[in-house]
């Protein structure tokens, strides 16, 4: 199953190729398009929210529907847009950056994607099946446990299944980075993007189990009558809040660290300078990851945990500003003395620095517990987390897409359209969210369906909605750019940006075995090191030989399909026990596929030396 075969055959073959692929580069494509699809859905939800809030006492959508929209917007954007984008980047870049032929577990890599997709489809199926979840993306009990209909059940199962996929992906990348680096690539020679993915994967490993348990408890409460979050039977709703945020806060760093990694690649490349303070950057990344687990209760300052807990978590939270500040200054000093080229990717990085600094500022402000008594659950918080998640993560994703698109697809995204996207999105973003800081302080609570006239909130909301339209325009331009590039884009060479790391040493897009011979790494910014010594490429670390590659398999898809089917059984067995048949059937499909996988030996296949010498690959 290689691209060569797929190109010769029709749509069916390509589809089959993608359904069965275990190639990390194709899985990256799948994550990218899966994430893009959900990003559009989440974006539409955001636009409806902003239209509803364009004027006071508006009734463009009903109150109940509005709650579904805000829940789905948050859930979709975090779990089904930002996360898959991050995974797309991990898959597309990390094995190339460390000089590996694939990830440690290609089969599990595919499984991770299909579980994510199954989860996303289950969640969004709720729109068509009697109503989406409506308890907010945080799903605080008992609002979520008592929410009528099946909306929250879809939330629970969708997140549970996609969460399993994420966990698998996290472990996979940890092992890949530990075990599969090319000879000579010590930890302190790893590109910073790989470092951030390493830390992110560790955060996934330790954060997601808490969510898994939380979701199980909620599922038991809603579907099987247990009493975890039912105060009438001795349950305790704060357990959910803790479990959710023990996961939820690291999740924010899971999203932002890869974005930091992207900027740490983009800024050096387009300043033609090595990253300033590499060691400090690595240390800061690890420290942010570690502190990320110590601060979750700052989401709960108003819960009533008592002044001691609030004070401890306030101070711990402030501490995170220090490593983050270190990063900002190191980026600035990477540019200092450099030769800055303003490409679209760099433009996103340049836009990111002030935007994220503002987001960080409000972050520190929020950490001050008593001040947070005013901000908490107000539009100030909405503004803050959009500054860090859009201004950090989404800017990072846009930067990385413009930067790595040529490597992923062999074609350069149009720079002019890219810059148009940047400017409309950037201006629209600040227009939308800056004013929301003030709306919050002026007494506008978060998740509010409408507001009354005469409360001084009218103009701010109008401006905010106008900004949202500008952002939407920018996104549309980007999608147009993608289509335009696919049709008309120019093919690019191995190294269109004058890059510094290993991924730029091989063809764009790379052959499916990535490296004909695994390179020998002789320093940080391995390619740059060779360039400075006048070498065109890296020295190989091994003689040309047969390459062992994994076989493709449909089983990951089948396993996920089984869980997809079983979820509907879980959800509807409450209404009618006959749905248990669907539940059991789905589980049988999944376990059956797992059984087949474990009893059938799969030793992979070899690409022969002779074929490699022909330069063909297959």
């Amino acid at each position, binding site marked *: 199953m290689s691209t060569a075969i797929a190109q010769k055959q029709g749509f069916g073959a390509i589809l089959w190729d993608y359904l069965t692929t275990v190639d990390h580069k194709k899985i990256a494509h799948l994550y990218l398009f899966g994430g893009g699809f959900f990003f559009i859905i989440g974006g539409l939800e955001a636009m409806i929210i902003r239209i509803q809030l364009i004027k006071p006492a508006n009734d463009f959508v009903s*109150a109940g529907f509005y709650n579904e929209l805000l829940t789905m917007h948050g859930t979709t954007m975090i779990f089904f847009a930002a996360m898959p984008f991050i995974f797309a980047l991990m898959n597309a870049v990390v094995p190339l950056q460390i000089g590996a032929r694939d990830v440690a577990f290609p089969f599990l890599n595919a499984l991770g994607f299909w579980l994510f997709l199954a989860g996303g489809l289950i969640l969004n199926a709720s729109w068509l099946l009697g109503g989406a979840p409506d308890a907010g993306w945080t799903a*605080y009990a008992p609002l979520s446990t008592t929410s009528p209909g099946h909306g929250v059940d879809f939330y629970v199962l969708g997140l549970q299944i996609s969460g399993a996929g994420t966990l698998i992906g996290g472990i996979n990348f940890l092992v890949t980075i530990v075990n599969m680096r090319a000879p000579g690539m010590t930890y302190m020679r790893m590109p910073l993007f790989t470092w951030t993915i390493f830390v992110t994967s560790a955060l996934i490993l330790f954060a997601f189990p808490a969510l898994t348990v939380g979701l199980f408890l909620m599922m038991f409460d809603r579907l099987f009558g247990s009493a975890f979050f039912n105060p009438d039977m001795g349950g305790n709703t704060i357990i959910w809040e803790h479990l959710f945020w023990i996961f939820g806060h690291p999740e924010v760093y899971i999203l932002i660290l890869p974005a930091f990694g992207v900027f740490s690649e983009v800024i050096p490349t387009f300043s033609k300078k090595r990253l300033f303070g590499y060691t400090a950057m690595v240390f800061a990344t690890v420290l942010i990851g570690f502190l990320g687990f110590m601060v979750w209760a700052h989401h709960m300052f108003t819960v009533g945990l008592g002044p001691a807990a609030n004070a401890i978590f306030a101070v711990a939270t402030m501490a995170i500003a220090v490593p983050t500040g270190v990063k900002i200054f190191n980026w600035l000093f990477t540019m200092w003395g450099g030769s800055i080229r303003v490409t679209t990717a760099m433009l996103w990085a340049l836009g990111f620095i002030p935007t994220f600094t503002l987001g960080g*500022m409000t972050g520190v*402000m929020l950490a001050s517990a008593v001040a947070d008594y005013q901000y*908490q659950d107000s539009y100030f918080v909405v503004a803050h987390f959009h500054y860090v998640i859009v201004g950090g993560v989404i800017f990072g994703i846009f930067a990385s897409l413009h930067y790595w698109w040529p490597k992923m697809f062999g074609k350069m995204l149009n720079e002019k359209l890219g810059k148009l996207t940047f400017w409309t999105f950037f201006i629209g973003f600040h227009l939308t969210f800056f004013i929301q800081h003030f709306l919050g302080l002026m007494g506008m609570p978060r998740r509010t*369906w409408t507001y009354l006239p*005469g409360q001084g909130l009218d103009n701010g909301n109008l401006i905010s909605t106008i900004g949202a339209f500008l952002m939407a325009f920018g996104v549309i331009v980007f999608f147009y750019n993608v289509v335009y590039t696919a049709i008309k884009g120019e093919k690019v060479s191995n190294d269109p940006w004058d890059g510094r790391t290993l991924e730029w040493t091989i063809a764009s897009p790379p052959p499916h075995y990535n490296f004909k011979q695994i390179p020998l790494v002789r320093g940080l910014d391995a390619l740059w090191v060779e360039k400075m010594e006048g070498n065109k490429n890296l020295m190989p670390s091994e003689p040309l030989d047969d390459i062992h590659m994994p076989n493709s398999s449909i089983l990951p898809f089948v396993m996920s399909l089984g869980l997809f089917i079983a979820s509907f059984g879980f959800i509807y067995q409450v209404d009618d026990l006959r749905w248990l048949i669907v539940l059991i059937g789905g589980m049988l499909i999944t376990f059956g596929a797992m059984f087949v996988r474990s009893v059938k030996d799969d030793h992979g296949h070899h690409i022969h030396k002779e074929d490699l010498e022909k330069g063909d690959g297959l």
Partner: protein
Amino acid sequence: MKGWMGKFRVLFILGSTALVLSGCGLENLTALDPKGYGAQVSLDLIILSIVIMVFVFLVVMVIYTFVFFRFRQKKGQEDVIPKQVEGNKVLEVIWTVIPIILLLILAVPTVTATFDLAEGQPEGSDLLNVNVTGNQYWWNFSYDDLDVQTSQDLYIPTGERVYIDMKSSDVIHSFWLPSISGKMDVNPENENTMFIEAQEEGVYWGKCAELCGPSHSLMDFRVVAVSPDEFDQWVTDMKNVDPEAEPETASAQEGKQLFSDKGCISCHALGSSPTAIGPNLTSFGSRTKFAGILDPTKENLVDWIMDPESIKPGNKMTGNYKEVTEEEASKIADYLLQLEPSEITPEDAESE
């Protein structure tokens, strides 16, 4: 923290007057114009953190602007290869230590204020205690020591701390009084306590800040802060209410009958009997708003009685009483509107 905060405060007041003039929110709703102790403490910290953070932001932006214009690649420099600098230990130490110091400047008053605002009621004090119950989508206020019940409008005396014990009867709510005190969650399984202290008379807006269902955005309440004397008067009046008192007009008398015939009375209490399923209506005629959000006119009240669902989706009144005609609703409205047991009304607070 008060002393040296003073200087910042002067600066801020100058700045904020300009902001308020240019429309920085509604008075008695915005957190930027505090009228109570808690809100004032919060605002002090907000200002302090803004000052520190704006300083940091300016430093970043100055370097950023300089770097961008100075080191942008110029024509003919495409082949220039800049010096590859590894890093600089002194700089790293500087931008680690200075932020730590700045954060300590913020952390110390934060911790102090956290403990300050969490201070419980002193043992044996006779300060006012109010039990607040959050319900989908209305608030009940019970003055247990005084044997007084009210809903939606919370009366407090100015200039003293009022301790409120909050609990929810259903899902989590959050009690937010931006111009007086910030907010605290109202949980179903434990009681949270905070104090509020209004420094001047007025009618202050409160909101529910935790998503609690479809009408979450409509779960407003108000705090009516009156002078201590007026408050005592109000308590006396409320205590002496006779829930059975006959209204004066014929229409209202019929309304009273309808109030029990149509089943209203099974949920709504009058007088000081404890919380029922719906809001206590003892002083309904003096309410600042009907249903938390409607201007207090008879028309609005009739609309509400006829079809509460269209005004507050998901409320618990819909469908729980017998159908009323518009005429009947009007009579019930007449009855409710004359329920004004106290001379102390929100107008007393506002006219000050």
